[in-house]
């Protein structure tokens, strides 16, 4: 996703190596996705549903 939007930076975080990050974001299961500290998605979703849910708050409304 980062590759297709210049606004997005993506981080794959190995939770056991960085327990302080896992604690800060309350990672109780994986995969867990945190978007701008505002949106959380636990588990895997089909691609389009994932993209829609992850970015809903960060996209301009359709004109």
């Amino acid at each position, binding site marked *: *996703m980062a*590759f297709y939007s210049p606004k*997005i930076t993506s981080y794959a*975080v*190995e939770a056991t190596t960085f327990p302080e*990050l896992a604690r800060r*974001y309350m*990672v109780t299961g994986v995969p867990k996705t945190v978007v701008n500290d505002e949106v959380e998605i636990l588990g895997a979703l089909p691609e389009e549903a994932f993209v*829609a849910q992850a970015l809903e708050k960060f996209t301009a409304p359709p004109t």
Partner: protein
Amino acid sequence: MPLLSPTDQQKLREWFAGMIRPVRLLFFTQTIGCETCAETQQILAELPPLSDRVSIEEVNLVLEGDRARQYGVDRAPAVVILYQETSQPSEGGNTNIPWVDSRIRFLGAPAGYEFVSLAQAVLLAGGGPSTLSEGSRQRLAAVDRPVAMQVFTTPT
């Protein structure tokens, strides 16, 4: 001893044959207090022999703090994927062409299934085919403010 089986090496060689651009893995490491830096180095070293378009540059997180800050990296091990906008084949990249940040980072050792994710990211940065649907691409094009996506995983 290589970590990848000959079969996996061959599969990755075929994947990477689809690359059209040089890709560099910036590997941020530190000497003290990094339990998985050595493992990460070992994993990353498996990749360049499989494609003349893939190279690795090791960056010391402490000694080269400016570069770490440039890419927003504050811990090790971390891998930042860069690419060059050229189709000119060159071992390790062309020296006169700037490296572009793919904005894809891996924090922690890319072991287990994360290794597959890393290989896919390398292929994507190298101009390989994308699997994203048209609908997803349209949503991505509509993102209008900076977004940081963190995907937490564990080794599997």
